[in-house]
């Protein structure tokens, strides 16, 4: 018996969309302080960073919902929340579940930064590297499009751009952290 492929197509495309939005959010976050484009105001870059993160979570919600509704792979609701309970590629799916939960935690930490303090908020943001790595591995191992050239190019482009922005962030001098002596021009 054939079934309606709509939700299967939706699940896959929403997964890729979430991955692209996550990558864009990570890239925007990485350039907030290193400022490769000096004309962009940090406050505007932070807004962009948070918007991409929020849209990414939206695509993620769609990805999960579509997987539950679809019948190509059997995915009960709890398998979206509890790792290793999916019968379809359990390890690859578990990586996706854990990555999604970390994403929600890091996103929510912005609203909780008053309670947890700016230092803990920054520490928690280091988890973003695990999120990006987890999302990449999850996509490569659980996705059915991985062997296609366009999918491979997308993963490669995302990893290369995040690696480049991370290197620039690590190597670039901080924009300006010291008080400028009176009379001096920066």
């Amino acid at each position: 018996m054939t079934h309606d492929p709509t939700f299967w197509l939706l699940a896959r495309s929403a997964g890729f969309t979430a991955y692209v939005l996550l990558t864009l959010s990570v890239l925007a976050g990485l350039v907030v302080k290193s400022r490769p484009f000096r004309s962009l105001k940090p406050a505007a870059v932070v807004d962009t960073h948070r918007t991409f993160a929020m849209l990414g979570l939206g695509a993620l919600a769609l990805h999960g919902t579509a997987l539950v509704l679809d019948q190509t792979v059997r995915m009960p609701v709890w398998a979206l929340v509890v790792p290793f309970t999916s019968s379809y590629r359990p390890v690859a799916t578990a990586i996706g579940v854990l990555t999604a939960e970390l994403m929600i935690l890091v996103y929510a930490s912005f609203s909780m930064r008053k309670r947890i303090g700016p230092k803990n908020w920054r520490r928690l943001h280091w988890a973003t590297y695990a999120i990006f790595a987890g999302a990449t591995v999850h996509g490569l191992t659980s996705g059915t499009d991985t062997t296609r050239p366009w999918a491979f190019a997308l993963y490669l482009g995302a990893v290369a751009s995040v690696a480049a922005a991370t290197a620039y962030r690590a190597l670039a001098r901080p924009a300006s952290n010291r008080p400028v002596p009176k009379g001096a021009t920066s």
Partner: protein
Amino acid sequence: MTYRIVIDQSLCSGFGSCAELAPEIFELEGGVARLRVGSSDDEAVLDAADSCPMGAISVQLVEAA
């Protein structure tokens, strides 16, 4: 001890930790931090400057006259 405070508003990302740690000294206006006073003897300004993820706040110790 009195501290003179300067915010580099072109660096401010609007994170807001300064206004949370020292609300009498910093406030957010239009998503960017601004000073309510030019100088203060409250040590909270040091925590606020330290907490800024952009390093946009500089604090100078004013020598006693």
